[in-house]
């Protein structure tokens, strides 16, 4: 008798548990999918996400603090100094090496290198992973005008100085004559 009741219990249990399971899957079927359709829509990225770097080139003073802080030496920069102004040649970051540790960001005295929220970086060639952060090469127009103005001022100063010296010399000569 036990085995017979067990038999019907098994039948009942299997039917019941199947119905319960199918109810659950039906609920999931009607639920909105949680997938984010990536290229069309994106997950919100937190502000402190460590993605591809970006550089505020106007502020940068080519002090090499970030390059020195980098534990794997992936930052390289090169610039020519004209007085106070910089003529940029390159500022590269090798993303084959970079491990996005953010250690380059903290030592910057001008707070000009940051990590952005962009993470997709695809290339067909390895060399393209050596990414140039510069937004312009050479000097900016402002820097150039500033430099020209500074040069002019310098020249004026020098001219004024020369004129003064010449005056003084002339005066000296006059005085000498008077004496």
């Amino acid at each position, binding site marked *: 008798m036990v085995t017979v009741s067990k038999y019907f219990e*098994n*039948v009942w249990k299997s039917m019941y548990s199947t119905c319960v399971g199918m109810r659950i*899957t039906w609920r999931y079927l009607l639920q909105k999918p949680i997938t984010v359709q990536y290229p069309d829509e994106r997950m919100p990225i937190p502000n402190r996400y460590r993605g591809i770097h970006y550089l505020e080139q106007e502020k940068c003073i080519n002090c090499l603090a970030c390059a020195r802080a980098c534990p794997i030496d992936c930052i390289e920069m090169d610039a020519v100094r004209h007085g106070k102004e910089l003529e940029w040649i390159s500022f590269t970051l090798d993303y084959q090496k970079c491990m996005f540790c953010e250690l380059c960001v903290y030592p910057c005295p001008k707070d000009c290198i940051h990590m952005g929220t962009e993470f997709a970086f695809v290339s067909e060639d390895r060399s393209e992973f050596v990414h140039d952060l510069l937004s312009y090469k050479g000097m900016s127009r402002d820097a150039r005008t500033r430099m020209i103005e500074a040069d002019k001022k310098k020249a004026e100063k020098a001219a004024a100085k020369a004129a003064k010296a010449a005056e003084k010399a002339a005066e000296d000569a006059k005085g000498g004559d008077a004496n």
Partner: protein
Amino acid sequence: MSLSTLALPLSLLTDPALKLAESETPEVAEAAAEMGELTSGTNLINELLMLAPIPDFVPGWAIPLTAIMIGVAIVMGVVSLNAMAGTWLERKVSGHIQCRYGPMRAGWHGFLQPLADGIKLMLKEDMIPIGSDRVLFVMAPALVLASVLGALAVMPLSPDFFFADAPMGLFLILALTSTTTIGVIMAGWASNSKWSVYGAMREAAQVVAYEVPLGISLLVPLIVAGTFSLTEVSEMQSGMFGIGGWLIFKNPFMFPALILFFIAVLAESKRAPFDLPESESELVSGFLTEYSGIRWSFFFMEEYAAMFLYCVVTAFFFLGGFNSPLTWLFEDGGLLPNVILWNVAAFFTIVVKGYIGLFVMMWVRWTLPRLRIDQVMTMGYKYLTPISLVCVLGAGIWEWGKAALLG
């Protein structure tokens, strides 16, 4: 039931009129006359071709042959389109049950994904492993697909449009679909891989176990309806709103029989939770392990076609066949009697019913985990077979009692 009556339906597939004249014994002649009456509307394509202007040089046998070819082309088209729709539905349903979308990129909600998959499968290298039995390996997918194509020929697409209205249609379907097992065993053996042999052996064991409850549970609607013919059984079920006459409401043992039949169908068509022959995770896809490209897709087409066919059989013998509120509207004596609309509605009804069945199969697949082989055997032999026998007994007693009481 003599052998000659069993052999007749098969011959009727080609041309009923041809065979009827050849019948010799009076018994067969009688049966043939009955069948001739039933199959008078057979092959609408043939009749349409007869109406077309045909030049004199075309021999007489060309017309039925053309009709058969067109029928074969339609069935092939149905099989491949059904496989495409089935894979798409399968991926969408499985995706949504898992809170994903499924394919989304190709076409509207990935609707063209099966097309892309089909092109990929056709362009794939056709591998035949070293040490395999080449002849059997090449033959197996063809055999598997051919059996299901043959079975689909009996399926009427609408009350007036069918290729072969065999009076023993259900019998033919059961016989032909179970021959796919031979193809699967051939594939497993010819692949020269232990996984394939395991899969094939499991398939054989499973089919032997589940063919029994499948047939027995179908006896219940057969007792109630009293016919094997698919068109006849669907004619029988017309009723109030196209729902009232469904066989499932005619006998209390129909509902358990439907559930038993559905479980047996899941096992027969190798669907989860009975997908042991091709279990991906344990047997590396079983008998499909060594197949690739178009041959693999033949097995896939067979699987979906068999699923669809079984669902259609379920619809015919349990859930009203062509009858739905839509066909009720257009049928003779309905609100808007119109033969063409009625046929179109019937076609849509049967397709929708078939796909609802497919959907339930997918739903079950993503609900239940795969059973162990001994559990599968236990379920087949110890549970489904005796319960289906009880159902047949009960249905028989019910029908007998109804006849005795109501006259």
